[in-house]
């Protein structure tokens, strides 16, 4: 059984009346990737920033390693690597100079050349950071988070705003870290990212953890075998009666989904009702539930709402 590297107990952070983080508890095991999912304002970043020592909790404890150290301790700062949600560096330092600067802040460090290779920035080694693209900046941010060869790596929405190619490139880097045995806390908006990279997933909403477990455990927890998705043609208003179909959820625009254990019965009922209300259904698909469905089932909203 892997050891816990971080233990969080009854963590709270309030901003006036707003409960950004409201009494959460979890632990992080050595070598695992824990993904924290949640919509904007769920409390993911506040949680992570308390773990990084950037914010002080109003209540509760965060303890690192066997020594039960607080996030503000020098030892913890030496052992964690942080990639923040928005990456900013000294604009007129090159990629290598930036890494050299951050390496100099730690007792132990990895050679800059190795890090540059790891995040595939060899051809940008001498480029000033102000001239890097968004994806290159994010990769540099990941490299900077690794300069001290940390035991725990925080990646806060590392692929937000990146194009699909840059995103896939960064996923490969994170996968390599995972394979290298790093303990990683990853916050993300992207289900695919969590499904692909995380060992365990924690879903947060309104400052609370509403579900946690492996991907399979979470999918099993919603007790849904199939999802039928479809769209409604035309632009006439959707009749009230149609919306009363059991298990129906509005996804976006004129698109809907229905969770069901009996696909045939559900499809039959849908076509029956559409005929009754003189509606044409389009793009009807049947699929197995994924993390997005877990999220919608638990919170009643899409992850990016």
């Amino acid at each position, binding site marked *: 059984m892997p050891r816990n590297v971080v233990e969080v107990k009854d963590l709270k952070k309030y901003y006036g009346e707003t409960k950004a983080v409201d009494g959460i508890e979890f632990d992080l095991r050595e070598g695992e990737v824990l993904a924290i999912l949640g919509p904007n304002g769920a409390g993911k970043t506040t949680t992570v920033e308390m773990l*990084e*020592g*950037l*914010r*002080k909790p109003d209540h509760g404890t965060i303890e690192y390693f066997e020594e039960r150290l607080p996030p503000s301790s*020098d030892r913890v*700062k*030496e052992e*964690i690597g*942080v990639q*923040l949600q*928005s*990456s*900013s*560096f*000294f*604009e*007129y*330092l090159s990629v290598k*100079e*930036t890494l*050299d*600067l*951050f390496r*100099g*802040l*730690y*007792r132990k460090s990895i050679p800059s050349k190795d890090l540059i290779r790891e995040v595939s920035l060899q051809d940008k080694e001498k480029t*000033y950071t102000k001239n890097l693209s968004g994806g290159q900046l994010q990769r540099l941010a990941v490299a*900077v988070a690794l300069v001290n060869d940390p035991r725990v790596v925080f990646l806060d929405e590392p692929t937000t705003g990146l194009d699909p190619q840059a995103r896939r490139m960064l996923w490969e880097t994170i996968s390599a870290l995972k394979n290298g045995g790093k303990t990683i806390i990853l916050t993300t908006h992207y289900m695919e990212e969590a499904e692909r990279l995380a060992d365990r997933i924690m879903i947060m909403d309104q400052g609370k953890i509403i579900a946690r477990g492996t991907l399979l455990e979470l999918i099993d927890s919603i007790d849904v075998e199939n999802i039928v998705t479809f769209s409604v043609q035309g632009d006439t208003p959707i009749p009230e009666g149609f919306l009363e179909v059991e298990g129906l959820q509005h996804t976006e625009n004129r698109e809907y989904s229905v969770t069901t254990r009996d696909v045939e019965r559900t499809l039959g009922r849908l076509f029956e009702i559409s005929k009754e209300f003189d509606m044409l259904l389009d793009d009807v698909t049947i699929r197995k539930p994924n993390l997005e469905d877990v999220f919608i089932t638990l919170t009643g909203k899409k992850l990016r709402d």
Partner: protein
Amino acid sequence: MSRMWNFTSGLFKSEIREFQVMFWSFIFPLILYFILTSVFGSLYGDDTQGISFRVGIVREESLSGLGMILDKVIEDISSENGPFVKKEYGSVDEALIDLKEGKQDIVLVIPEGTSAKIASAAVLQTGEVALRVHYISGKDSSSIASNVLSEIIDEVNLEIRRQSGGEYVDVVTEAKTVSAREEKPFDYREYIFPGVALMMILSVALFNSPIGLIQYRVSGVNKKLYTTPLKPLEYFAGHFAKLIFTMLISLTLLYLTAIFVYNVRGPILDIRFILTLLFSMVVTISFGLMIASFSKKLSTVTVLGQTLYQLMMFLGGLYFPVFHLPWGIRWLVYALPTTYLVELSRRVMGYQFAPVSLFWLILVPIIWTAFSTVIFVINFKKVMGYE
């Protein structure tokens, strides 16, 4: 320590490569020095027309008889259109203190028995009657005032001769040197050097420093640094060291220009003068940190920095004397640390323009440094902290 130097070096490299920093810190001061020297260098010389000298009068006796001619002359020369502005003192010591503090250009002492000596000289031809003039050698205004007064006393002799019916009386001035400094001609290229040097120091301390700090905070660079083992003290020490490096490079360029282009050497190479520049760096950097500690936004710090920079430059007397300004704004002249810093540098060079003693020239900037540092320490967590 190595962590701090590593950070300083990165910070310095990053800023020095920015064109704006390069221009305002290194190039602009040289351009300004060139412009000011070219425009005003030939305007200032030994021409003292239109200048009023300040004379302190000490009467060890009330003049009477022929001696009253001297009284009349003193009144005339200190009238509205006269070359002197007089102030009467009760004792020589009191007058000499003001002379040393630059509040007077010369002190004229009418010794006890002057009236009797003038009468005796007029009737019995007993020789010369001496008045004492104290002046500061090495200070242009003081030397010139002393010479002007001697010329006027010659006119007094002629008037006594006329009034006493043709007998000759020789009233002379006996010059007493108050300061032993060597006579020093005014040189604008030399005079403006501390002004331009301080302007350069100010542009780094009031622009680069607070804007840099707030920019790093707003952009998130500081946030990233807070996740590393870098301590706040190391962060600010690195920032301070970076500013000092920038200022030293800029000063070196200014020195090279002054020495090799304008042939200004002696006083600016004096170690005491160099120390005044280092003192100015510390004072203005602490001032800049205080400005940063008042501002959460980049726009606020820019406006605040720009306003104080202009005030300190023009009302601090960096380019021209400011102690004749109306009291409506002269209080600002006295409030600004740059007034004292630039005067201190010029005092070390042998010039004196401000009626302020050396003690205050040092103490006021020290008070500003202490005040700024305290304000910065109180506010810094609120402004520089992440939460």
